[in-house]
């Protein structure tokens, strides 16, 4: 552990960002942790105040303070809400890194987090775990056994998807998918970690839709994690290493775009330029990489109107904005435009659309109670709109919402945008 300077001293260069906060409170009402906990320290304004207090040595990095940063979901709804243009993302990222460097968490917490980071960012390890996870569904039917387990493990089990992708390579996308018809784009597809293991069919659907719209899709076989999970947990060194590895994987070919279908990964990859700006060997490459990154909805909406014939899907569709797409990347209109391009689809508005579903990276694993409450609320709002299908753009949101929809007994499907688009392809 680093003992140089005060625990918050690495935030000092970010003070100008904090000074942008005029303490108006406009960000409070869409902050999920403030909504649940109703206390200033769990609001964006309060957290920024604590950061500033930390830099000015008026606040020490105690367990209590760390808790208030841990309850932040990193959903960035506060950036959307802030009229003063406060950039909260760099602030919370640096704060988390400072916490990891200076704060000793309780042993159980440390071990749990370490275990998560030994598994989650590695698709092959995750896949090994996926099978036993599937069998734990049996456990869901034995409440007494369940009750005996620690809360976090219980929630982990609750979240385990019903059907992990089949055998060791099932759900993988072919390394190359040729464009159908005249080629309009050459794109690299990032296949993600959680996405690849639990939602392989989403990647396959993505490749199909992209190809149908004239993209030649390449999905490099040996790609790793993008580093989002590490970055959001304050493991910035790990995140930088993941970033370098991924950039290397995609180096050497001339892409029109590097496409991703997971919102959390997309926002991180768009930030590689910033993440590696102090690394002279990588800064330029990272910037170049970031400038090519597109969410799949961005690439597809550039190619509208659709070239591939679409069939009728007579459905009421609710589009759930993934936080890391809407708040972090400002991508809201494109997915909706794409959904409207499917004949028969009626888009229904969803209440409290700007509030996080509670998934938020590893948040639903480390803060299970809060995450579950947000999940329940989200599903209640979704259900009010009586949709046939809820569409979103992030594997974490899909896991979280599916779990809570099933628990609440709802039958509407929850699918990725690419899946519904693929369904509407006639061939």
């Amino acid at each position: 552990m680093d003992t140089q300077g005060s625990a918050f001293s690495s935030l000092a260069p970010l003070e100008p960002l904090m000074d942008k906060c005029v303490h108006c409170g406009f960000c409070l009402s869409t902050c999920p942790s403030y909504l649940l906990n109703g206390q200033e320290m769990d609001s964006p304004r309060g957290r920024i105040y604590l950061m500033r207090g930390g830099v000015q040595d008026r606040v020490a990095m105690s367990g209590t303070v760390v808790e208030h940063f841990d309850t932040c979901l990193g959903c960035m709804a506060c950036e959307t809400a802030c009229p003063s243009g406060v950039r909260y993302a760099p602030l919370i990222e640096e704060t988390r890194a400072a916490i990891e460097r200076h704060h000793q968490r309780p042993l159980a917490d440390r071990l749990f987090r370490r275990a998560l980071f030994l598994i989650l960012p590695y698709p092959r390890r995750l896949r090994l775990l996926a099978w036993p996870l599937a069998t734990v569904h049996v456990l869901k039917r034995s409440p007494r056994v369940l009750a005996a387990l620690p809360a976090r493990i219980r929630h982990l089990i609750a979240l385990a998807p019903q059907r992990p992708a089949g055998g060791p390579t099932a759900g993988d996308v072919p390394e190359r998918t040729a464009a159908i018809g005249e080629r309009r784009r050459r794109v690299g597809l990032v296949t993600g970690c959680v996405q690849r293991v639990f939602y392989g069919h989403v990647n396959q659907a993505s490749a199909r839709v992209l190809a149908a719209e004239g993209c030649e899709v390449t999905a490099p076989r040996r790609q790793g994690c993008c580093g989002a999970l590490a970055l959001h947990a304050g493991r910035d060194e790990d995140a930088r290493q993941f970033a370098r590895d991924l950039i290397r994987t995609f180096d050497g070919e001339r892409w029109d775009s590097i496409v991703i279908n997971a919102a959390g990964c997309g926002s991180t990859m768009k930030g590689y330029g910033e993440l590696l700006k102090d690394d002279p060997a990588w800064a330029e490459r990272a910037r170049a990489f970031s400038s090519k990154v597109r969410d799949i909805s961005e690439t597809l909406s550039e190619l509208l109107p659709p070239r591939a014939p679409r069939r009728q899907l007579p459905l009421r569709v609710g589009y759930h904005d993934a936080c890391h797409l809407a708040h972090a990347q400002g991508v809201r209109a494109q997915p909706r435009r794409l959904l409207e391009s499917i004949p028969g689809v009626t888009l229904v508005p969803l209440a409290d659309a700007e509030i996080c579903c509670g998934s938020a990276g590893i948040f639903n694993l480390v803060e299970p109670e809060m995450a579950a409450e947000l999940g329940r609320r989200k599903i209640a709002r979704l259900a009010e709109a009586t949709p046939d299908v809820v569409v979103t753009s992030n594997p974490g949101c899909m896991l979280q919402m599916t779990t809570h929809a099933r628990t609440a007994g709802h039958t509407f499907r929850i699918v990725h945008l690419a899946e519904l688009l693929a369904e509407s392809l006639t061939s």
Partner: protein
Amino acid sequence: MDQRFLDELGAVVAPGGLLTDAADLFTYESDALVHLRATPGAVVLPVSADEVQAVVRLCHRAGVPFVARGHGTGLSGGALPVEDGVVIGLSRLNRILDVDIPNLRVTVEPGVTNLEITRRVSPFGCYYAPDPSSQIVCSIGGNIAENSGGAHCLKYGFTVHHVLGVEAVLPNGDNVHIGGAALDLPGLDLLSVIVGSEGTLAVVTKATLRILRRPEAVLTLLAGFESIDLAGEAVSAIIGRGIVPAAVEMMDRLTIQAAEAAVQPRFPDANAVLIVELDGPQAEVDEQFAVVESVCRAQGATSMEIARDQAHRERIWRGRKAAFAAMGRVSPNYYVQDGVVPRTKLPEVLRRIRDLEARSGLRIGNVFHAGDGNLHPLICYDASVPGQAEHAEKVASEILLYCIEAGGSLTGEHGVGADKKAYMPKMFSTDDLDAMHLVRCAFDPAGLCNPGKVFPTPRLCGEVPGPYRQHPLERAGVVERF
């Protein structure tokens, strides 16, 4: 703060409802007026009216001052804690208890936000009329305490015209019902006493509010002008023609730029914009619009844009509502002033403000509810430049004097709070203030309920910061409390 007292507080609120950690208390130092700060001894976050009552009873018994707080967006330091006193945060009392559409009313807890009410009733074609710019986050409890208003108060009135009744805990811990469902109740009108009392008379724990049916037609006009003066004359001419628009708002070049940078409302490139909203039956709106349009043309409007649908209207209002907070885009710090002048004196006061701007070297933006002469000058400064914050404060207070001299008021809607109490004697005579003080003492003889706010000088009722101390005259038996 005394540990026994803290233990007692902890015992009457649900787990997690008492904050005493230094870092936690630190975040409650101030509301949206950040240069006034004080660290409370404890923050309680009750989840029921009973808990509020129990907390107030304990404070009353121990003589500890307490301050109610909604979501801390006040701009006059109303929720500024008393050093070592208790803050009663009402953020967790946030349930909408009853929605009664046939009778057009809702009953809510005080921590419910203003906008939440409109959201809840809008599927029924209704809305809650008072619309402070901070409506997305400010609480109904705070609105009641400040008698908050917004752009549409010109036609529809302030909070006081929309509160039917409240339940509140008096400073001695008694729970009272004030007002009720009927529009005109017998007895003293205590409701109007509570509304606007800035948390100095009671802690509101429940409120029944009037909601309105949405008007048949709404039309919003955005017009650009060569100068603030021309825009101001347009406002006078519109009202002079017997029209009461739902709202008339004005913004100057600096605030237009800030809003543009923040939320891109696509305002015209002009020295002043006027937003005029008309609502009511379609025929009436059409008729009035013709008049408004011709008036604006006559005053040389450089552009006119008409919003007939919700999305377009929202875009225009977003620009107006973000204006204060958006100043953060064009200046490191800013000070929001809030004063009122008779509408006819607007040009004169604005001229004085412009002279002051030139003299002071600080940029001053102007946003105002032009219809009712409520000015919001925004004084830009840089706190990192030594002395500039104080300078800005002086400039802001000079503007207040202009307002008072013009026969206006030292606050339109943000309240007196801790910030402006020193100006009260400039507006009220000693007798006027004494009359208010008598009311205050009747509710709160021990001076424990949000002391140090509104009233200019510490007075007999114990307006001393810190735990209550007996007044020397009282101790000597010369006076007794009432």
